[in-house]
C-alpha cells in the first residue's frame, strides 16, 4: 500500500492537458488533407497509382476530391504529388458523411458545430457500447486508450459500457464482416431509444481497405482515420455533445 503511494507520488500527475490545451501530436502526424486548386488530371492519376484504397481519391468537373472516410492517411499521394498535403489538423470528426470529402481549393477549415438538441442533451453523460465488427483491433485499442489516465475520458462523463442496454450510442469499428452482421444488428436493436450510431475508423465508415457490410442505422458521428488518433476521437466525441 505504502509502496504504491510512493510510486504514485514519484510518477506524478500524468493526465494530459488536452483539452483545452492542444494535443501533443507526433512531428510526422498526418491530419486533414489539403488539395491545391490547380491540381491536374495527371497529378490525380499519379496519386491514385500509389493509393492503397480504391476510390479514396477521385476527380470530376469540380476538381479533385479526397474522401477521408476511405483514406488511411498513409501519405503516399502527398509523396508523389506536391499538390496534396496532410496538415496537422486533427479535428476530423464530422456529423454528415459528405463532410468527410475534402475538395481541391478548400482552405481555412473549421470543424462543424453540434446543433442537434438530442446530441446536446448528452453533454454531461455519454455512454457508449463499442462493437468490434471485423476490423484489425487498432481502432479498439486506441478507443481503449481514452479510458487510461493519460486521456481520462471519464472526466467528461464519457464511458464505454458493458451492455447496449446502458448505452446512448453504439460505437462501431471494423468493416462489418459477414459473421458480425447479426451480432451488430442485435446489439444496436438492444440499445434503448433514443440511440445513436457512431462510425469510427475508415473500415466502419466506408469499408476502407475492405468491403463493408451494412450499418444498422445512419451514423450521426464519423471519426475518420486508420485508426483515428485518440485526440481525434476525444475531440469528436466532445464536439458531438456540444462540450467543445
Amino acid at each position: 500500500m505504502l509502496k504504491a503511494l510512493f510510486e504514485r507520488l514519484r510518477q506524478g500527475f500524468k493526465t494530459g492537458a488536452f483539452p483545452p490545451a492542444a494535443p501533443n501530436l507526433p512531428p510526422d502526424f498526418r491530419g486533414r488533407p489539403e488539395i491545391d486548386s490547380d491540381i491536374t488530371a495527371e497529378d490525380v492519376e499519379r496519386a491514385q497509382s500509389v493509393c492503397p484504397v480504391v476510390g479514396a481519391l477521385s476527380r470530376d468537373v469540380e476538381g479533385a476530391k479526397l474522401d477521408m472516410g476511405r483514406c488511411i492517411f498513409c501519405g503516399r499521394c502527398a509523396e508523389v504529388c506536391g499538390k496534396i498535403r496532410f496538415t496537422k489538423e486533427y479535428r476530423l470528426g464530422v456529423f454528415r458523411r459528405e463532410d468527410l470529402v475534402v475538395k481541391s481549393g478548400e482552405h481555412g477549415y473549421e470543424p462543424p458545430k453540434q446543433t442537434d438538441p438530442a446530441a446536446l442533451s448528452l453533454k454531461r453523460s455519454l455512454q457508449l457500447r463499442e462493437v468490434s465488427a471485423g476490423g484489425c483491433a487498432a481502432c479498439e485499442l486506441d478507443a481503449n486508450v481514452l479510458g487510461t489516465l493519460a486521456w481520462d475520458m471519464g472526466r467528461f462523463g464519457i464511458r464505454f459500457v458493458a451492455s447496449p442496454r446502458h448505452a446512448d450510442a453504439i460505437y462501431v469499428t471494423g468493416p462489418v464482416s459477414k459473421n458480425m452482421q447479426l451480432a451488430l444488428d442485435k446489439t444496436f436493436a438492444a440499445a434503448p431509444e433514443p440511440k445513436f450510431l457512431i462510425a469510427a475508423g475508415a473500415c466502419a465508415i466506408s469499408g476502407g481497405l475492405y468491403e463493408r457490410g451494412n450499418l444498422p442505422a445512419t451514423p450521426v458521428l464519423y471519426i475518420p482515420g486508420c485508426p483515428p488518433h485518440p485526440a481525434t476521437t476525444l475531440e469528436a466525441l466532445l464536439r458531438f455533445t456540444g462540450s467543445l
Partner: protein
Amino acid sequence: MTETKIFETAAEANAFLDSLGGYVEPKAVTPLKGESAHEVAVGPVHAGVIEPGHFRFQCMGEDVYNLQIFLGYQHRGVEDAIAAADGNRSRQIALAETCAGDTSIAAATCFAEICETRDGKHPTDEDLRLRELLLELERVANHVGDLGALAGDVAFLPTASFCGRIRGEYLNMTALLCGNRFGRNAVVPGGMRVALTDEKKAKLAEWISRVRKDLDGALRLMFEEPTVLERLEGTGVVPKETAEEIGLVGVARRASAELQGDVLSRALVRRMEIDEAHARIASLLGDAASCRVTAITAPHTGDAASCRVTAITATHPGDAASSRVTTITAPHPGDAASCRVTTITATRHGDAASCRVTTIVVTVNAWRGPLVHAALFDPDGKLLRYKIVDPSAHNWQGLAYALRGEQISNFPICNKSFNLSYCGTDR
C-alpha cells in the same frame, strides 16, 4: 530439428499451406451432458472494448470441464485481398498491416521481406535498424499493456493504471519515429519511408530512459505484491509436455518450457521480453558499428520447435520428374541470423532460370511469437497465393487447455496472459 517438406505439385504445396490452420467457421457445440453439467455462453460481443469471439464454458459443477472457442467473426479475406491486389504493393502492404492491428509492424516486415527476397533488393542496414527498432517498440507496448490488464483483472489498480498510460508512451515513441502509433505506413519493400535521424534517436533515447523508470516501478509493485502473485501462481497451467504436444509458440511456449506454464509464468516471460527488448533497443540506438541487425526474425527461445513452419518446397507443377529441389533453409536453433527468410525454389535440372513455382516463407519474431507469411509465385512473378499464420492460430488450443479444471472466474486472467489475436487468426 529441421523439417523438410517436398511437394511434387503446386496443389500439394497449397494443401500444406491450408493445413497450417486459420479461419474456422463458427459452428455448433458438442453438448455436455450430466447431472451437474451446465454451459455458459459468452460473445461474440464481449463486455469490454475488444474483438469478437464466442466462448462456450462447459462446466461440471463449479469447474470448467471444457472450453470451446469459436472464431471466424473477424474473417474478412485478408489473404485473398492481398493476392487480388497483385501489382499494387502499397495496397498489399496496407492490407497486411491491417491483418492484426497490434502486430502491424511485424506483418509489414513479413510482407516487405517477401518482396525483397523476390526482387533481390534488400534494404540498407540503417533501414533494417529502424525496422527492428519499431518491432521492439511494438513488443514492449503490447507486453506492457497486457501486464497492466492482468493487474486490472486481479483488481490491483496501481499497476493497471500506470501500465495503461505507459503503453501509450511506447505507442507515442513509435509515432515519433514514423507518425503512426501502430507503426503503420512506415515499412515498404526495399526499405523504410522514414529515416532514423540523429535528432529522433536522441529524443527516443531520452524518452525511453525516463519511461523505463516508471515502467520498472509499476511492474515491481505488481510482482512484489503477494495478493497478485497468489492469484497468478498455479492458475491456468499448461505443462511443458502439453505445450509441445499442442504446438504452442511464442510467449506461451516459452512460459511452459522455461517456467511452470501458469499465468504467472506467462506474465514473467513478458517481463523478461520487455527487458530483452530494451537491451536490444539500446544497442540499436547505439553506435552503428557495434550493432548488427540480426535478431529481427528469430524466435526468442532459440528453439526451432517454437517456429512452426520450416520449409516448404514447391516443384514444377505437373512435371515432378523434371524438377529438382535446390535451396531449403530451415531455422537453426540458437542462430538468429539463419532464421530469417526461407526461400524455396524448385528448379529444373539445377537451372534456376527454368524455375516454375517459388514459395517464399518469412518468419518474423512478433511479440506474440513467430508470425509467418508465405507467398506462392508463378514463373512470371505473379502472386498465386498469399498465406498468413498468426502465432495466435497455434495458441488458442493452449488457452482452452489452461482453463480446464479452473473456475470461470479465472478466465479473464488466463485470457489476458495469452492475449491472442482474433483478427490475426480469422484474417
